């Protein structure tokens, strides 16, 4: 047995000095200035034009999708939606720096990452309408996406639960010898949950190749970050766990990409977690159930609207000569049409047959669920008008 010394590296002091706030002032990586110009000496990630265009298009795509879906919710066509306006650079920039085999475990505001992976408008619509074409079978509310073939884990509402799960997933990837990591997204609010603590600490101790990506967007519904924590954001906690950490400007897609690329490399090569805190702002309402005018000022919002991540990338592309304004306009228009068309079309697709109600609780329905289904179907047959969505297909 080797001797252990949990004091082996500790320095000494001989004066009572309680460490106050401030020794942790973790700087924020910013590559592009607000006007899109790179900072002096900043080394941008080496991205080809095609990739940048894909990032830019995805940002535009998501902006359009968000707009349209909020409108659809207002029209009563879908029950719920949750936009990510203002945070597109965080989720899309990070997703772009990953490999397709990396698992994405997200919170709910990462539709950008999903779209970057190739989730189609049709897929978005199927999910939003909870229909039978949706692989998740319409069992959860809108925006709870999940796509196994895209390595995008089905979203779960309880906050923070995916954080220790991501550590476990990544551990499994390592044990299976895969060239893959897990990325785990969450908000600064969710980082208050006990599961955050467990997940980061376990990843550090058990050497899990996972990138924790915190979107610090200033709010958890109505609760501002200052009532969420008193420390130096979320990044400072990473250091406490011995987790390699970086803070980035979440509205600077280049910074996000560069940090994530590096984090992924470290996670994979060194078999360890990396924490990224992306500083951004939730320009959107929390969800379609929320109205932010109750808790924040228009002024504050305006200040952040000026830091729009799409505009920053656009400015950079412009300077680089990569911006084709006309093509972009067409792309946005085409997207708008596509979303509207798919919306209309998918609206007609029925929900799953009622038999699905007892499937997937277990690998196969046990006796009691078979009995409950049988009773239910007999009941529906008796009152078909009361269950119009399923009675036609018993």
């Amino acid at each position, binding site marked *: 047995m080797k001797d252990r010394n949990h004091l082996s590296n500790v320095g000494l002091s001989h004066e009572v000095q309680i460490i106050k706030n401030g020794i942790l002032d973790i700087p924020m990586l910013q590559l592009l200035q607000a006007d899109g110009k790179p900072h002096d000496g900043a080394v941008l990630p080496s991205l080809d034009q095609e990739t940048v265009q894909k990032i830019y298009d995805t940002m535009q795509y998501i902006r359009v999708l968000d707009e349209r879906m909020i409108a659809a919710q207002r029209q009563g066509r879908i*029950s*719920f939606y949750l936009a990510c306006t203002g945070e597109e650079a965080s989720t899309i920039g990070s997703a772009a720096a990953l490999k397709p085999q990396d698992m994405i475990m997200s919170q709910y505001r990462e539709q950008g990452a999903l779209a970057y992976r190739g989730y189609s408008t049709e897929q978005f619509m199927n999910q939003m309408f*909870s*229909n039978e074409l949706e692989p998740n*079978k*319409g*069992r*959860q*509310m809108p925006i*709870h996406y999940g796509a196994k073939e895209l390595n995008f884990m089905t979203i*779960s*509402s*309880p*906050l923070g639960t995916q954080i220790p799960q991501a550590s476990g997933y990544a551990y499994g990837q390592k044990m299976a010898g895969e060239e893959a990591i897990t990325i785990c997204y969450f908000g600064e*609010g*969710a980082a*208050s*949950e*006990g*599961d955050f603590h467990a997940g980061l600490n376990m990843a550090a101790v058990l050497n899990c190749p996972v990138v924790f990506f915190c979107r610090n967007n200033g709010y*958890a*519904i*109505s*609760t501002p970050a200052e*009532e*969420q*924590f008193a420390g130096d954001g979320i990044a400072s906690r990473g250091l406490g766990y011995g987790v390699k950490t970086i803070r980035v400007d979440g509205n600077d897609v280049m910074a996000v990409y560069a940090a994530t690329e590096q984090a992924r490399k470290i996670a994979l090569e060194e078999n360890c977690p990396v924490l990224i805190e992306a500083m951004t702002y939730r320009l959107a309402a929390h969800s379609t*159930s*929320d109205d932010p005018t*109750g*808790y924040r000022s228009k002024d504050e919002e305006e200040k952040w609207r000026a830091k729009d991540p799409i505009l920053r990338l656009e400015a950079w592309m412009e300077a680089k000569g990569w911006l084709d304004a006309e093509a972009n306009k067409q792309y946005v228009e085409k997207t708008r049409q596509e979303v509207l068309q798919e919306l209309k079309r998918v609206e007609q697709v029925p*929900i*799953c047959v*009622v038999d*699905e*109600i*007892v499937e997937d*609780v277990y690998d196969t329905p046990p006796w*009691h*669920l078979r009995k*409950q289904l049988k009773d*239910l179907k007999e*009941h*529906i047959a*008796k*009152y078909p008008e*009361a*269950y119009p*969505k*399923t009675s036609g297909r018993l």
Partner: protein
Amino acid sequence: MVKMNLLQAINDALISMMTQDERVMVFGEDVGHFGGVFRATSNLQEKFGKARCFNTPLTEQGIIGFANGLASQGSIPVAEIQFGDYIFPAFDQIVNETSKFRYRSGGQFSCGTLTIRTPYGGGIAGGHYHSQSPEAFFAHIPGMKIVIPRNPFQAKGLLLASIKDDNPVLFMEPKRLYRASVGEVPEEDYELPLGKAEVTAKGSDITLLAWGAQMEIIEKAAEMAALDGISCELIDLRSILPWDAETVCESVMKTGRLLINHEAPLTGGFASEVAATVQENCFLHLESPIARVCGLDTPYPLSHEKEYMPDHLKTYEAIKRTVNF
């Protein structure tokens, strides 16, 4: 009397308690300035200050842990869990702490002043995580009280009684009634008894038992049954723990039949406890098996919500089956 919806009745009770006793503190996620995602705590921060009505960080285990400590100190915490579906991270603090605090310390310390408020239940297109009815998990915890109101009048009277009661109370609010249920509520304070069920309609053929939002369901089913000449006695259990077996058994001895309706999944739901107790106490009076009309033994499904729910039609059918047994 004032016309109020269920949310307003709750808000009213909270204002009254905070006015009466400055040891009362209200907190939880978004309950401060914003007044909670359902607005049950509207205006409390403005009226009583940030020290007595405040947002917490987003941690249910922390909210209840904090509340336990605060209660044991002598303050009167009213903690909100934003959705019943999110109470589970606090389950350890409730099972092992809140409910055992008094017993383990021989009565030296207790969390008796604690009230936990949480919206629960389905029927609002909430899917898995905005629809659950978790009362049965808590009904197996000695030391807790569980209270569920069915309308604004009940809500105010039961919430006031819960906050004043010297035992930890889990106060579950049927969220699909928050705005839908409107009724006359006295402006002044009044308390409705904990642990007492209420017979809301007399009848002779079968007893229908429910609580919270499902009261509407059994009322509707009873109306349908009445057309068939079946006379239903209706009981609102109101308190799940300790529960009023006496009132229920008395009714069953009279009607000879019992149907229990709840939204939560059948297996291990609270209807099983009621059925087990009633069959024991009323064995010789029962003319047919006790029926349970409950949620399916599945997670709460979004698109099949209608099919999942123990609605008035399923209840009506079960009434007929039971009466014609």
